[in-house]
Structures are given as structure tokens and as C-alpha cells.
């Protein structure tokens, strides 16, 4: 389990110096925060709400932040804000404990990534977006962090609060699920 020792998360006084540093280090990642929230919530209004709340929380805890890369830190706050909001609203798609193993050995998934199957593929942005949005959240979030945010496995592990090994296996499955979903669409 990844520890959050780098991020003490202590509340401190929000002095003008803290605000200035926050503006310099954290606000530049606002787009990343919104993009991530948008893919998580799949709704532009909820995404805005999540980001606003996350920024408020981040400011409160920023005094204890050390380091110069606030992007994974901010995105982990976005993620937690989203998860808490889901719990509060008792959303039906509440994150169940997806068994990673349940997606393990599926020959259908492997075949989807076979080269011949990919040759005639014509994908467009809309189809791809829908396929990504349809992925279970724990796979979707890893895929977004890797492909859209270009984060390293280590950063992804920190944001999603999972071990690096789990990042690898979930990413692998995310890609296979996506290819399979796109293939299934093609078959129609």
C-alpha cells in the first residue's frame, strides 16, 4: 500500500505566502484536475463541483505540502473528493470492490489485441470516448492518468493509492478491455 508520507496533509495557517506558493505550484494543474474529474464523473457540472471542492481542500492542506510537483498531489485530492461525493449521494455506481482477478484470463480479451483484428479498425473520438467512459472506474482512472496525463507508474500509484504492481496489471486490463469494447462495437 502506497503511503502518503510525502504528503503530511497538515492544516496550517493560510498566509499570503502560502497563497502565493499555491498559485505558483498548484493552480497550473487546474486543467489536469478538471480533465481527471471529468473522466471520473463523466459529467461536466459534477466535474466542476469536484474540482472546486478539491481546490478548496488543497489550499487548506497546502501548508504541509513539500516538493515541487503538485500535480499527483492535487489529482489525488480530486479523486478523494469524487469518491466522497459518491458516498454522500449513495450513487448506484458506487465503487464496488472490483476483483481484478475476475478480469484475468479471458481469451476473448487477448484476441481483441491481436494484430489482424486491429488492422481494419477505424476509430473516432466519440466512439473512443464512449468506450473509455464505459470502463469500470478503477480501470478508467488508470488509463486516463497514463494516456492523457502521461504520468509515470509511480505517480499513478500515488494518485490512485495502490502499489505499482497493481498499476501495471490494471493498465494491462484496461487496455485489453478497451480493445475488446471497441472490437465489439465494430462487430455490430
Amino acid at each position, binding site marked *: 500500500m502506497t503511503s502518503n508520507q510525502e504528503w503530511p496533509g497538515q492544516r496550517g495557517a493560510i498566509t499570503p505566502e502560502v497563497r502565493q506558493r499555491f498559485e505558483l505550484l498548484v493552480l497550473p494543474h487546474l486543467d489536469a484536475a478538471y480533465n481527471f474529474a471529468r473522466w471520473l464523473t463523466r459529467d461536466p457540472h459534477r466535474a466542476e463541483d469536484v474540482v472546486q471542492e478539491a481546490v478548496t481542500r488543497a489550499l487548506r492542506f497546502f501548508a504541509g505540502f513539500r516538493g515541487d510537483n503538485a500535480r499527483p498531489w492535487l489529482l489525488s485530492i480530486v479523486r478523494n473528493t469524487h469518491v466522497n461525493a459518491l458516498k454522500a449521494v449513495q450513487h448506484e455506481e458506487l465503487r464496488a470492490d472490483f476483483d481484478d482477478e475476475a478480469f484475468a484470463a479471458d481469451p476473448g480479451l487477448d484476441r481483441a489485441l491481436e*494484430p489482424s483484428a486491429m488492422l481494419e479498425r477505424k476509430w473516432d473520438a466519440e466512439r473512443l470516448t464512449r468506450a473509455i467512459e464505459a470502463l469500470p472506474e478503477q480501470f478508467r482512472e488508470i488509463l486516463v492518468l497514463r494516456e492523457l496525463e502521461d504520468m509515470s507508474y509511480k505517480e499513478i500509484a500515488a494518485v490512485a493509492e495502490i502499489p505499482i504492481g497493481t498499476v501495471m496489471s490494471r493498465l494491462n486490463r484496461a487496455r485489453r478491455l*478497451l480493445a475488446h469494447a471497441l472490437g465489439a462495437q465494430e462487430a455490430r
Partner: protein
Amino acid sequence: MRECERVRERLDAYLDGELDSSRAAELEAHLATCRDCAAALDAHRKLQGAIRALAPYHVAPAALRQRASDLVKPRPAGRRRVTLAVWQLAMLLTGAAAVPVASLMLAPVLIGQGVDAAVPVALVDAHLRSLRPDRLVEVASTDRHTVKPWFAGKLDFSPPVQDLAEAGFKLTGGRVDYVENRAVAVLVYQRRQHIINVFIWPDAGSAARMKPVDVDVNGYHALGWRAGEMAFWAVSDLSMPELEELRVRLEGTQANRAMPR
């Protein structure tokens, strides 16, 4: 083939540049001789390329950017921001009438403003209680012509009720609540997913108008002010700048000036 299996397992890491150089070299050596695995890598690359090229990257809308920037701006001058630490909150909530108020950091500030220190804490408590099912409103209506008269006969004053839907604050209804043994009017507004309780009661107070006071009670915001011989407190988990926006709008249109009976 065991080796192909192992290579397939490492393809993602290789693709993402996360494989150490010796393992990467091993893999490349295998790929040079194994057409199936080389094709598999190619397929992986195509999928990755498609995602990166086609999946939209959503940038923050201008309004959100503005709000975020406002959140970070320093507080307006002349406004005292008071933050209660958890221990102070606990002391006040557990009927710490025995605790001399002067011993609390925030007391001099609030009392200097004519505000009883325990009030914002009690209001946040009332706010939290109201979030339980069926506790929020006793009259549910977005129409101020329904909500305002509802208070008649229940309170000895008539609170000003305004429709602020256009400003993004939806009137949800009203109720009577009890704070510090006093019956108060509560107007419930909603902005996005946030519930805002606006507590109102008559308070002639000093002749001078009380400067707005904002209090952070363990993450909840309470903004208090006095206008038209009424005390107002807006309580929510909504951000303080947005509560401030609500205050400005409520004060701005005093169309229904409250009259004590």
C-alpha cells in the same frame, strides 16, 4: 511458450518506458525473433496512439478557473476570518457553558463584533442536523410567495425571502429551527450539490451595522451579518467566496424588508 507469456506480461511496461534497461533488452531480443510478439506490441502501440490522438483532454472552463483563482486570492481587508480548531468546537458543542468564553481565541473577535462566540458553532450543528432525511424543509417550494407567508403564525417576525435562481442559488424551502433556545427562520438555498441554510432572526443590536463575519467551523463556513434589524447567518460547505456572493445578493435586493410583528 513460457517466454512469450512473460513478454506479453511486460509489454505494457515496455510500451510505457517503465521497464529497466536489462529487461527491455531481453524483450527486444525476443521481439527480433518472434513475429507474434512483435505484432502484439504493434497492436498495443496502435491502441495507445489512438487513445492519445482521439480521446479528448478537457480543459477547465473559464468560470471554474475564475472561481479557483478567487479562492486563492487573499481575503478582503477589514474582514476577520476566524477558524475554530477541532478542540474548540468540541468544547463548545459539549455544552461548555462552564468554559469561560474569554479563554477561546475567537471570542474577543466575535464579541467585539457583537456576536456570541457559541452562535456559529451552534448554527453549524443545526446545519448538519438539517441534512438528515426529512429534516431540511418544512415547507418545500421554490416560490417565495409560498415560503414567506408560511412563517406567519409560527414566528413573531417575517423573514425576507428572495428568489435568487437566476444567480444560481435555488430556493428550496424553509423551516423553523431552534438555535440557542430561540426560534429562528431558516431559508434553504441550493447551489449545485451544496445546501445552504440561511438562519434569520430579529436583532436590533447596536445602531452601527455589524461588519460581516466569516467563521470556518471544521471545514464548514458560516457567514454572518446584520441588515435591516435582522441577523443573518449563511451556513454551508460551499466555499466562502460563493457564500459572500449569496450575502451580496440577499442584501442587494431588500424588496421584502422584514418587519417585526
